């Protein structure tokens, strides 16, 4: 049914027979989708399994649940600091995204449109900054964070996350600004607009898709960040979700798999929901960063 019409996406597909299509397309695709999604299914089903079914594979099929329970979620929400971790993650992600967007919009506009002396080199340096991985920066950063006196505070994360957000957002926004015709800015200049007015009234409204892409991407990156949050935060009430779930819910040798998986599930939901609304923006920001 798929190849009724002439289509452009794959060459000469219309000459393929159905059995062959099933073998080379649908079967591998089904395996890929199964493997890529199974861990989430397993996470979700474990999160709602009553304790007696969790490891009793002989009497209950492990792939299904009889009488799903919200006990684990309740435990998480009312007997642990989970809500606080969630709140911290939201604050840190939103604040660092806002800072990164503000700085990146100005920087990208300056590099791409003001063309100040050294703009090209600056653009290249920003790209190189994107290639510096957090795992070689966290030790000196921990040292600095401690010296500045913001160790074990949300501020430590809010100020350090932009180091990997700004290079990415700037690079992405440079691409978007490049696609806006110069003529629009020139006519605004002729009409007596200042550079700031051009940026806020002409360029930014046209770059809204780019801003959304950069914003949700930056939010996701900060939500998922781990090594800085693990290193810079020590007290339980300041932790973010990924760090809190891993370091506070795992105690001793008895793993509370139900609670752990509930924590993982609830911690993933915000980004997954955001993602489901903005799939195309995600794809364009991911591929946009690569294509440049």
């Amino acid at each position: 049914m798929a190849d009724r019409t002439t289509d452009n996406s794959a060459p000469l597909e219309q000459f393929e027979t159905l059995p062959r299509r099933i073998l080379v397309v649908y079967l591998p695709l089904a395996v890929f989708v199964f493997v890529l999604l199974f861990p989430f299914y397993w996470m979700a089903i474990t999160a709602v399994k009553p304790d007696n079914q969790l490891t009793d594979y002989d009497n209950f099929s492990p792939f299904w649940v009889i009488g799903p329970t919200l006990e684990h979620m309740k435990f998480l929400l009312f007997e642990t600091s989970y809500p606080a971790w969630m709140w911290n993650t939201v604050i840190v992600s939103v604040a660092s995204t806002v800072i990164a967007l503000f700085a990146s919009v100005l920087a990208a506009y300056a590099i791409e449109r003001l063309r100040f002396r050294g703009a090209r080199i600056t653009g290249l340096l920003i790209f190189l900054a994107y290639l510096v991985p957090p795992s070689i920066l966290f030790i000196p950063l921990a040292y600095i964070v401690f010296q500045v006196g913001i160790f074990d505070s949300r501020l430590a994360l809010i100020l350090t996350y932009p180091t990997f957000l700004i290079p990415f957002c700037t690079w992405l926004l440079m691409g978007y600004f490049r696609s806006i015709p110069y003529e629009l800015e020139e006519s605004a200049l002729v009409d007596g607009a200042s550079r700031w007015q051009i940026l806020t009234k002409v360029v930014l409204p046209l770059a809204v898709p780019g801003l959304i892409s950069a914003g949700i991407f930056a939010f996701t990156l900060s939500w998922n960040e781990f090594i800085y949050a693990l290193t810079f935060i020590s007290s339980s009430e300041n932790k973010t979700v990924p760090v809190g779930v891993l370091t506070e819910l795992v105690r001793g040798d008895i793993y509370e798999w139900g609670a752990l998986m509930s924590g993982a599930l609830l911690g993933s939901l915000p980004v997954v929901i955001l993602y489901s609304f903005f799939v195309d923006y995600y794809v364009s920001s991911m591929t946009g960063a690569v294509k440049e």
Partner: protein
Amino acid sequence: MTGPDQASSAPAQDDPPRRRGWFSRLSESRNGLGFLFMLPAAAVLLFFLTYPLGLGVWLGFTDTRIGREGVFVGLENYAWLFDDPVFWLSVFNTMLYTVVASVAKFGLGLWLALILNRHLPFKNFFRAVILLPWVVPTVLSAMAFWWIFDSQFSIISWSLMQMGLIDQPINFLGDTWNARWSVIAANVWRGIPFVAISLLAGLQTIPQSLNEAAAIDGATPWQRFTKVTLPLLTPIIAVVMTFSVLFTFTDFQLIYVLTRGGPVNATHLMATLSFQRAIPGGQLGEGAAIAVAMIPFLLAAILFSFFGLQRRRWQQGQD
């Protein structure tokens, strides 16, 4: 060139007189305004990225510990690491992890991209669903893998036992090589979507007329793939794989969740070893030295994957 040559903006007429001064003069020249606009980004990056990068190199030459200022000790940390078998084991592990996982991610990702490039019902749905492993926080999906790789209640072991393929649960994370393959598998799982979706974007830019022309000339599907699609895709493969190698080489989260470097350091990567020595171990100097030791390997890996693939494009362009 349609560049904004008259870029110095006219100052807004209704500026209050007291604001005229160095600020308005600065914002009238293009370089001055560029400087002002770059200021926020530059301040953050210089203080929290460039400075720590330099500080990290310096710390590597000192014996700094947590809570105690260090003194310059020259190459002592590096000499110490050179004689440390655990460090070399972590180098080996990082290499193995990066090479095997990157090759697997590339192969499987390209395969998935080629499948998705066909005409499929619900194509957008599949594309959206396939990106999920990449969107969900790594630590949280790694915890699902932790549970999937459980030594007693692993669902994989159980399924294989039900099928009668094995007699007892596989000790996924407790055995040296099992643990290595398990973390590599989890990393590949996490990385396939990025490679697949990026390569798919590349595939969609290749005009189908080229493939059709080759087919009319009698090229087999395999010839069309290797002689038409692959050469045209090479530039984007180079970029995607450079990023993939970079992120795999510096991976930390997955190992930290699944094994913390165990069993007996068998899965320690340089990043996790550096963390273990520096933060729980308190030896900031030594940890920084390990992190700095990653830089040459990292540069080599980036240069290899970038220029290696670029040159292949050039060679193929010649014949």
